């Protein structure tokens, strides 16, 4: 085999030159979430400042470090000083850091999240001790936010493709054995042991086998695969190479959703680089193994996450699932044995091959090995992309890493597994995050979407939300799913509209069982899960909707009435001006009144009524809710306290 020693040596040299750079380096996180938060403007400003001031400095783009709520993130390397990670760096903050920290000697502690690889510097603690990072073990995400994803040298210098080289050395049988020893299970949701799927495929005689990387991250509320591809695309390619070698597959496809243009672009760059280096193509590095990859862009259909539907989509047909068996591992793409693996599963393989199965299996539980990435979002204080050892508790994830409920509100439940998963109530937060425990609680691990719900989330509305989604995405092939999800949605819509009867809850549960048992594919079989878990854990909330026409979370509009408290309203006209239905009347200085007949209960008045008055209140069933009235000084005091706690 053609050795890559010289390539590695050159890559390491260039990487080390950057690591120990004699000139300042700005690493700007420009993954999709960073850009959404304004990283593009920060990047432009930094480049312009460096040019305008004639500075000798580098500006490097990286992927996502994880703490998305603190984006844009910029890591600053100043020669002979520890690197510091700064959060919420807009263009103005970037200039501030440039002037005060890089050109001066103030580490800008007020903007710093932590020092990287150091205990502390001048009042800046270690980044690893930041509450969002403590408790995480970043293995799969080790390069995200650290390297330039479009620079192959960076990936190589950090032992990139060494797992694949090892795989070539030991050969297919030993690769499968290592994957079996490591105990890795599919990260796409179901958690099927990876080696067993491979084994079935390998035992099927064929002249051609295919490998597909499923990057059609369709679960609403999940963005692990996007971040991983955007931050470290070569890790996915290396995983594909290892899997293809084990399977004897010569062609691979990456099926990526079209909503992820940056991920697709970065994969394209990575594939080009791998081809140039001879890591993709014919007779790779002289090993006799040939493999190449092409990208297939999805076109917006959730059902394509299902294996047989995904295959149909690549073949250019309507993505309708097929009954199984035959399993794709036996007869898949164009009738050939085909293995479909999720992005994260593939990115685990280089680690197993390079560091060994024992090292890999050190983390996790008996049946759930390694780490799992989660996209932490919803009503949680710190949102972002995290990676934790399997088996740590949901409480550790949402309270320690996530910092508890957003705005200090109590957490009501945690939703895992997206539209196929369920809601786990706050009382069960000590549940370990592993495949078996989550299934036992009525949910699933899923691909890693983890949405936190608080008292202002109505679980009945959430169940309706998911049913709207699955009903819309049902492909229509089998009646239990096509008709059943529609009928379930109809019942849920009646409940949130206050038009339901007490019989509806029983009907809903019956239907849920039928849809679960009768549907052809996973989409329909799991579609009732959000309804079943909320019925199981929050029966009173359903009953309140049905019997009292009450939504205590004040979400279900038809069950809410907005009113203005005459005693509190000074007549500031803020609500009059903003009401889109023009339902509020009143002149300045006199209490305003909402005309019930015109009001759409949209809540605009509530959102603009100054907290010092808090004159708009809501009623639903037996519950009346006033917003907390804050004096001006009090409100400022609270935010100052929060800022201090953030420190």
């Amino acid at each position, binding site marked *: 085999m053609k050795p890559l020693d010289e390539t590695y040596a050159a890559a390491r040299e260039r990487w080390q030159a950057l690591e120990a750079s004699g000139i300042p380096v700005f690493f700007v996180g420009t993954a999709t979430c960073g850009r959404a938060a304004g990283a593009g403007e920060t990047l432009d400003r930094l480049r312009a400042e460096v040019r305008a001031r004639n500075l000798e400095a580098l500006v490097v783009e990286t992927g996502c470090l994880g703490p998305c709520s603190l984006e844009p993130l910029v890591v600053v390397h100043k020669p002979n000083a520890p690197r510091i990670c700064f959060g919420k760096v807009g263009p103005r903050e970037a200039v501030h850091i440039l002037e005060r920290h890089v050109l001066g000697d103030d580490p800008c502690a007020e903007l710093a999240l932590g020092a990287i690889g150091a205990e502390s510097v001048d009042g800046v603690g270690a980044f690893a001790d930041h509450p969002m990072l403590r408790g995480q073990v970043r293995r799969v995400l080790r390069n995200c936010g650290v390297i330039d994803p479009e620079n192959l040298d960076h990936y190589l210098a950090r032992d990139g493709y060494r797992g694949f080289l090892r795989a070539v050395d030991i050969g297919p049988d030993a690769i499968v054995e290592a994957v079996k020893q490591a105990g890795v299970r599919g990260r796409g949701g179901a958690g099927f042991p990876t080696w067993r799927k491979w084994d079935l495929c390998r035992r099927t005689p064929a002249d051609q086998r295919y490998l597909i990387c499923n990057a059609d991250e369709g679960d*609403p509320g999940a963005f692990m695969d996007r971040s991983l591809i955007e931050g470290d695309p070569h890790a996915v390619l290396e995983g594909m190479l290892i899997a293809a070698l084990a399977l004897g597959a010569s062609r691979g496809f990456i099926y990526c959703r079209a909503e992820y243009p940056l991920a697709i672009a970065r994969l394209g760059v990575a594939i080009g680089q791998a081809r140039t280096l001879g890591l993709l193509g014919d007779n790779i590095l002289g090993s006799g193994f040939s493999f190449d990859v092409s990208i297939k862009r999805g076109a917006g259909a959730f059902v394509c996450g299902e294996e047989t539907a995904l295959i149909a989509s690549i073949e*250019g047909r309507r993505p309708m699932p097929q009954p199984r068996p035959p399993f794709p591992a036996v007869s898949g793409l*164009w009738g050939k044995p085909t293995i479909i693996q999720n992005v994260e599963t593939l990115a685990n393989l280089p680690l197993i091959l390079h560091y060994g199965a024992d090292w890999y299996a050190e983390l996790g539980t008996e049946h759930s090995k390694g780490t799992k990435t989660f996209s932490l979002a*919803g009503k949680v204080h710190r949102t972002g992309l995290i990676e934790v050892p399997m088996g740590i508790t949901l409480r550790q994830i949402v309270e320690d890493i996530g910092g508890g409920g957003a705005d200090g509100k109590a957490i009501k439940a945690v939703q895992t597994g997206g539209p196929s998963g369920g809601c786990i109530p706050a009382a069960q937060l000590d549940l370990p995050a592993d495949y078996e425990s989550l299934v036992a609680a009525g949910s699933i691990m899923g691909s890693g979407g983890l949405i936190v719900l608080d008292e202002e989330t109505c679980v009945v509305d959430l169940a309706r*939300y998911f049913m709207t989604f699955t009903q819309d995405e049902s492909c229509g092939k089998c009646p239990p799913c096509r008709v059943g999800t529609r009928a379930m949605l109809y019942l849920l819509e009646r409940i949130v509209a206050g038009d339901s009867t007490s019989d509806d809850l029983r009907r809903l549960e019956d239907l849920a069982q039928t849809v679960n048992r009768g549907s052809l594919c996973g989409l329909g079989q799991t579609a009732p899960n959000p309804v079943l878990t909320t019925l199981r854990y929050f029966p009173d909330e359903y009953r309140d909707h049905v019997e009292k026409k009450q939504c205590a979370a004040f979400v279900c509009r038809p069950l809410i009435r907005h009113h203005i408290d005459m005693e509190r309203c000074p007549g500031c006209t803020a609500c009059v001006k903003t009401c*889109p239905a023009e339902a509020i009347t009143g002149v300045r200085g006199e209490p305003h009144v909402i005309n019930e007949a015109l009001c759409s209960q949209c809540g605009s008045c509530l959102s603009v009524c100054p907290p010092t008055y808090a004159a708009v209140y809501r009623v639903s069933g037996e519950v009346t809710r006033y917003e907390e009235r804050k004096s001006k000084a009090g409100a400022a005091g609270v935010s100052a306290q929060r800022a201090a706690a953030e420190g």
Partner: protein
Amino acid sequence: MNGTETHVSTHQVLTSPADGSGSGRMSQEHLIPTLQEIQERHGYLPEDALRALAAATGVSENEIYGLASFYAHFRFQPPAEHTIHVCQGTACHVRGGHQILHDFEERLSIKAGQMTSDHKFGLERVACVGCCALAPVVLVDGKVRANMKPKLVRGLLSKLGHAVSATDT
């Protein structure tokens, strides 16, 4: 519009060697990528382009329409001048994404999936754009606007040239 040009391009795509199937003739595998290419060029799938594609592939127009209409991304009418996609992902939903959608609907006097009569604004739902940590988000002409709030809807629209008084009544 220029059906011939589309025809030439689809023809080129379709006569390149088929991947995987190994037959080397025009392959069904290229249908979706070709439809994506057509939509990128025209902003939608014009009827004459679909007809040209049917002729080039031997797949019936019916079947091509059946394929394209299955997917959420393909559209059969020209897009509006500005398209606003309101994310309906789970994180956006629990952080008020439905409220944002409702506000856009009220301000523009259209429902999701429709466009204003002057073709200036199109309003669409999107299942999830994967920016969940910055929810709720909307896409304005493809660019993500993070941490959206109901009270920002009006300003966003007027910045794009929406006459507030005309449709607010």
